[in-house]
């Protein structure tokens, strides 16, 4: 964007919002909104503290494990659904139900089934992320050009070869889009899991800070979380752009 002939760098709008935050914070309008400068200085203090490091590790572990399962289960499932009519008919209603279901309401059931530990948190994270990954991989496979498959078959491709050399790559732009959205949902899943199942990780920090009215601590952790989610999502968007040259020409 340009204003009065000056080219503004990307995300300059954030500066305006940061300024607004600072003003509202300094005006003492609400106890729950401390000035941004306080939040940032708290952030710098909190980052190296052992409590934060431990929370980061716990949340990161649950998040990465949850995303890992969502990806390695979700992508092949979606590809199989796109390839095989029968599997598709069997699974599609469930995928659609879970995609739109209020998964938070399911968390107590998971706690009964899998206990109060890390396992349930990871499963919650996976459940938040996996459905959109499945649907996108399926959509990617369904728009694949028939003659690419004929071509692979005519040269004697085994099912495994057509899976790894044709289907996966042909659906890659959609798959990456699905993983990107899935990861954003997984951030939600891991925090909800850590608030509802067992109070660990960032969930525990949120709980601790809000219960003790440490609002600048609370906001600091939220900013860290947002920055992490944003970074991962931007990285995947970058990968998507890398394959976009063929997304339109398949």
């Amino acid at each position: 964007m340009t204003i009065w002939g000056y080219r503004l760098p990307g995300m300059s709008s954030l500066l305006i919002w940061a300024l607004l935050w600072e003003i509202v914070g300094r005006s003492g309008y609400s106890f729950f909104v401390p000035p941004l400068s306080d939040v940032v200085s708290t952030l710098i203090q909190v980052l190296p503290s052992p409590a934060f490091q431990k929370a980061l590790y716990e949340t990161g572990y649950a998040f990465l494990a949850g995303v890992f399962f969502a990806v390695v289960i979700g992508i092949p499932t979606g590809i199989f659904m796109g390839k095989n009519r029968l599997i598709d008919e069997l699974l599609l209603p469930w995928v659609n139900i879970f995609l739109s279901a209020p998964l938070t309401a399911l968390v107590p059931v998971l706690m009964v089934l899998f206990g109060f530990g890390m396992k349930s948190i990871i499963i919650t994270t996976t459940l938040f992320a996996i459905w959109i990954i499945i649907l996108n991989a399926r959509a990617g496979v369904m728009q694949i050009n028939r003659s690419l498959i004929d071509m692979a078959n005519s040269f004697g491709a085994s099912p495994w070869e057509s899976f790894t050399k044709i289907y996966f790559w042909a659906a890659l732009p959609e798959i990456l889009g699905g993983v990107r959205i899935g990861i954003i949902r997984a951030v939600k899943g891991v925090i909800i899991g850590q608030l509802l199942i067992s109070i660990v990780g960032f969930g525990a920090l949120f709980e601790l800070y809000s219960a003790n009215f440490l609002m600048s601590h609370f906001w600091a952790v939220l900013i860290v979380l947002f920055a992490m989610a944003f970074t991962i999502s931007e990285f995947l968007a970058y990968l998507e752009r890398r394959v976009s040259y063929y997304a339109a020409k398949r």
Partner: protein
Amino acid sequence: MAMPQIKEAVAPAEPDIAVSTRNISKNYGDVEALKDLSLEFPRGQLTSLLGPSGCGKTTLLKIIAGLLEPTSGEVEVDGKAVTGPGEDRAFVFQDFALLPWASVLRNVAFGLELRGVAKSEREARAAKYINDVGLGGFENAFPHELSGGMRQRVGLARALSVDSQVLLMDEPFSAVDEQTRRKFQEDLLELVAVENKTFIFVTHSIEEAVYVSDQIAILLPRPSRVSEIIRPAGLRDKDVDNIRRDSEYLDIVDRIWASLRNYVE
């Protein structure tokens, strides 16, 4: 004046048949796409399957390729019944069927890759065929950077590099522009002369079929059957530039049009 050469009065007694289809029928539900179709394809020659759209010529080609199963009947290549795709046949696709995420080199080598040829060997062979089809220097280009004609050259190089005896071509020039198509047709004639392969060529263009073929099988639709087989006798020895004004060429084109005219809706 030179003595007029004595024409050898030989039709070779029993032409060597590379591919034959016997009593092929193909039904899609109640629809009969092909009915009791038998055809023979002489070795080293180019046979066109020509007919109006919907006459099942691509279906027949895919059955020969082993990509579709006939409802009844069988296909033999070199006397062996076809049960699926095989190394004796290679396919050239109407829409090129290139991997958009792979370079020209990998695309051309892809047939060899699927047949389990080691990387260095298949890339060497692919590079040779890339040169042969006139794409030298484009090894590292991607399909979306090439014109339609160049893409089909990649498809052709891929089919040639696996060195199959039978080349199946499904309207290979229909997606390229007119000038490119004419050049392709000339190149194809040369290819048929140089390579001792059997070509089966699907087209809906009468002129194209007459120009490139040793034998033209005219298919009529609903259900599809062979109505006529035409073997242009004197066109092969003509210079490529003169074929199109040869009287035999013009006669055959007219004759085919006369028999197909009623089927064009």
